[in-house]
């Protein structure tokens, strides 16, 4: 079908975007609007001994100044543990924590008023080392450990002939979506509040705004405003609650729009972490045992730290069969910036470490890096270290073979390392080739309900699709349109702006929206089709069971009966359908698996490195990814290329540098994201083995390319330089000065696994650290 599933349909919001007419959250305005500004803590840790707002209130044009004392509902919010105050509650725990908010007639007045709020701080020593957090006095009544995960499988003392171990470090990455946070709130006649906002998850925001305002959900009305990128960084509440509180307090519309610096301070970052891994393998490269320990710095408040740590720990095994292992990890509280969701959600950290280990094993055994990966590749039917059976297509070998089939780039690179400055000397440039293969879990995990609802109506061939799925740039609007064309035979499709008038679609994260909201749309379209065909059957005296929709036409036994557009003139047929993945269970549960689905990805990076200056140019990244089925080739390529470049950014340049709890580079001058000059050529191929239980066999595709690019690029730089490079981002000085320790290789006497312990999973979790409770709609189980 023209414009249906499988074709490169153009984005429906594209024309407005190329004309500059698409309305983003930052473009919002309303009659009589006030502008909000936030007073933020300059200290990473301090006691607040006094707040005087009188001077701020006295400024002409200021309509409200709110502190925690003015929050009518429950002060505390959060995606999992609800440990964060909407406005500081006597203590500040990170630099940038909101202490007060101001609404004034314009931005300049609001900023001036914010500066006039006098906050007295008694600075406390900041706890900035996550290792020390484990034993330090608690920074918060809820303690310092967000979650401790510990389990083993098989016989963790089993050994092969060789053991490699090393400690890996991953820096803090900023989602750096290009449109800073913005939203516009206003009081509604029902005594409630409305908010147009750029977010990833309308219903989670709605719940959390409800807590602070004391309003029931039906009086908190959210609509999605145009979103300029998200990548996980809009999953948590930032300005949402503040805008609503101020709108209610002033009776006026209130708009917030963060500056870039505030954006760095306010949203959650990717967790920096330290990962120790020890792999033991047979002489033929087969993995005998893996032991791993992870420490993630969650920063000041929980956000999704309890969930992220579990992803990192459980996926340390990589896309390889591991029968014996011992895994442990902590995500902990510090006075560093809060960390939470970012594309990959704990997996890039694991992937960087396990892939460095596979290369170290291959190096020790003199094996080809792809050969050792093929030898250990997971297959359908294998059981994960965390006890889940891979019972869907598990094409690890296939993505590796697919990658191997892509030719290497021919000839010299177009440009030397160093970008437009061309600083590299030809004599010191070395080429390197690196490989990585990764596993990424798709959708929510461990019992967090993963669901969506869609309402579809059809009238004279025009379909309207309504969900609460946040379009953040990824292209769900296109997918929804394609589904409506294919399933329903719609001639034209409108995907309406998401809002809270329909049930939650969950977050636009975890590579999940095609699977969740796409499937809900598919089901609703199928339900409308049933009604349509029933009408056609009645009208034409046919058996509805024999009718199909092909290319916009209702057919009986392949013979056209009527165009869909003329099948039920003037009538609107409507259906609302819900989709929910089969249940998942906490780690260690005997009832079922932790994860909904998995995707596998293999990449090869080719780099040129000036080994004297430490400058790296990524020449090409080739990718072969397990995508279930290709819904829209152009959009899929956009996800692959975009993910690879973000992963490359983490591998080579992106790091939020935090010194004594303060972000030293909260701008694009010093926080470097890849430019067009840095971007490599990308060659992208796919393995299409349909995912069972999903319409069209689709599965999520957004996160794997990033997860794989980080280790692939790092491996290529290692290959070019011969350096161990156990930390990302790999900065010029790491290469030029050869910083970082090499893996320790030990030759061991083989010790086979004790058979009695073959398939036992032992979960050893401290009682107080219950699994993340993002139970209903991210609406946590309360404090």
């Amino acid at each position, binding site marked *: 079908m023209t414009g249906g599933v499988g074709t490169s349909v153009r984005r429906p919001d594209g024309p407005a975007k*190329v004309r500059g007419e698409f309305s983003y959250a930052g473009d919002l305005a309303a009659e009589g609007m006030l502008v909000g500004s936030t007073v933020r803590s300059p200290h990473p840790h301090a006691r607040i001994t006094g707040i005087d707002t009188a001077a701020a209130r006295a400024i002409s044009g200021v309509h409200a100044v709110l502190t925690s004392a003015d929050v009518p509902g429950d002060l505390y919010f959060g995606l999992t543990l609800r440990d964060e105050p909407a406005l500081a509650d006597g203590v500040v725990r990170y630099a940038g924590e909101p202490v007060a908010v101001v609404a004034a007639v314009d931005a300049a007045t609001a900023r001036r008023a914010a500066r006039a709020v006098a906050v007295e701080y008694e600075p406390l020593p900041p706890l900035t080392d996550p290792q020390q957090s484990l034993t330090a006095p608690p920074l918060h009544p809820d303690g310092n450990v967000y979650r401790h995960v510990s389990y083993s499988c098989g016989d963790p003392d089993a050994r092969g002939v060789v053991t490699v171990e090393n400690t890996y470090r991953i820096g803090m990455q900023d989602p750096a979506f*290009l449109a800073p946070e913005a939203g516009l709130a206003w009081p509604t006649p029902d005594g409630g509040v409305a908010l147009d906002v750029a977010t990833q998850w309308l219903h989670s925001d709605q719940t959390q705004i409800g807590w602070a305002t004391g309003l029931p959900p039906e009086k908190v009305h959210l609509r999605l405003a145009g979103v*300029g*990128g998200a990548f996980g960084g809009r999953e948590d509440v930032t300005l949402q609650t503040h805008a609503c509180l101020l709108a209610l307090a002033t009776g006026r519309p209130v708009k917030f729009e963060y500056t870039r610096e505030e954006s760095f301070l306010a949203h959650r970052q990717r967790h920096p972490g330290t990962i120790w891994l020890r792999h033991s393998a047979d002489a033929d490269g087969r993995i005998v045992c893996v032991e791993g320990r992870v420490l993630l710095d969650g920063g000041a408040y929980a956000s999704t730290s309890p969930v992220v740590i579990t992803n990192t720990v459980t996926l340390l095994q990589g896309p390889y069969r591991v029968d014996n292992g011992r895994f442990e990890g902590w995500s902990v509280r510090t006075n560093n910036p809060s960390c939470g969701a970012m594309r990959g959600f704990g997996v890039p950290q694991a992937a960087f470490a396990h892939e460095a280990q596979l290369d170290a094993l291959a190096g020790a055994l003199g094996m080809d890096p792809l050969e050792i990966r093929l030898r250990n590749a997971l297959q359908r039917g294998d059981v994960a270290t965390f006890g889940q059976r891979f019972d869907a297509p598990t094409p690890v070998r296939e993505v590796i073979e697919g990658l191997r089939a892509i030719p290497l780039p021919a000839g010299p690179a177009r440009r030397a390392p160093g970008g437009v400055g061309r600083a590299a000397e030809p004599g010191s440039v070395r080429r390197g080739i690196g490989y990585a293969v990764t596993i990424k879990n798709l959708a929510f995990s461990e019992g967090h309900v993963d669901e969506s609802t869609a309402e579809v109506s059809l009238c004279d061939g025009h379909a309207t699709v309504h969900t609460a799925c946040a379009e*953040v740039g990824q292209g769900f609007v296109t997918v929804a349109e394609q589904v409506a064309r294919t399933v329903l035979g719609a001639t034209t499709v409108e995907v309406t702006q998401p809002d809270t008038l329909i049930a939650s679609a969950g977050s636009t994260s975890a590579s999940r929206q095609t699977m969740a909201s796409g499937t809900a749309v598919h089901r609703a379209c199928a339900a409308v089709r049933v009604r349509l065909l029933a009408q056609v059957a009645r009208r034409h005296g046919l058996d509805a069971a024999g009718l199909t929709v092909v290319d916009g036409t209702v057919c009986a036994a392949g013979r056209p009966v009527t165009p869909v557009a003329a099948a039920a003139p003037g009538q609107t047929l409507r259906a609302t359908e819900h989709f929910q993945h089969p249940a998942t269970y906490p780690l260690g549960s005997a009832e079922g698996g932790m994860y909904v689905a998995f995707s596998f990805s293999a990449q090869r990076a080719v780099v040129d490195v000036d080994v004297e200056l430490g400058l790296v140019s990524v020449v090409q990244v080739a990718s072969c990814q397990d995508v279930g089925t290709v819904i829209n080739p152009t959009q899929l390529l956009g996800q692959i*290329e975009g993910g690879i470049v*973000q992963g490359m950014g983490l591998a080579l340049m992106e790091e939020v540098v935090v010194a004594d709890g303060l972000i030293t580079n909260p701008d694009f001058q010093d926080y470097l994201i890849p430019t*067009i*000059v840095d971007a490599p*050529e990308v060659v992208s191929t796919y393995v299409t083995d349909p995912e069972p239980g999903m319409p069209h066999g689709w599965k999520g595709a957004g996160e794997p390319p990033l997860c794989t690019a980080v280790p692939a690029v790092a491996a290529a730089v290692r290959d070019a330089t011969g350096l161990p490079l156990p930390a990302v981002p790999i900065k010029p000085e790491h290469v030029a000065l050869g910083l970082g320790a090499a893996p320790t290789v030990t030759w061991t006497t083989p010790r086979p696994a004790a058979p009695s312990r073959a398939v036992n999973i032992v979960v050893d979790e401290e009682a107080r650290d219950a699994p993340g409770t993002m139970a209903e709609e991210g609406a946590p189980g309360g404090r």
Partner: protein
Amino acid sequence: MSVDPLVADEFVTFPLTVDGVPREVTARWSESLLTVLRDRLGVLGPKTGCGHGRCGACAVRVGVGPDEPHVLCACLVPAATAVGATVETIASLGGPDGELSDVQEAFLAEGAVQCGICTAGFVTAATELLERHECPSRTEIEEALYGNLCRCTGYGRIVAAVESAARTRRERKDPVPLTTRKLTASLRTGPEAAE
């Protein structure tokens, strides 16, 4: 450049031409052209990404005085220097009769648009590039666009879009059969030949 805060806070009224329409605006001297456009005049095509000239989301074409108009970041231009300026935003870059320009069309066709917050800036910069270079090399494309950040696409589709728009433009101007054109191109010297 440091601005006297007293002067910076002073309001001033001055004329400028935005997208062909003469406007008069009252603004603080210290405000950026981006603030003038977005907050004073309601011209929302240029976007705010970083506010310090690093992302290019606010790229507009500005002509001041006798100089040839060129693309720059509106967030870096103090209103004081925009007095009497001619500003062309993305709204000036459409095709005839409200159609999309060839560059806009190519951005859509090649999938160069995702969240779109950078798109107006990229289209603005790419349009200027193609006015100067009929057949830009990959390196020339990079040099023209490295002031524009995109966080979604990884740039691959953006390069494809610019190359496609250039190709379409050449074909429209010079409808020579493909084989002949390839031969001609290979006989050329200069950066194109190296591609």
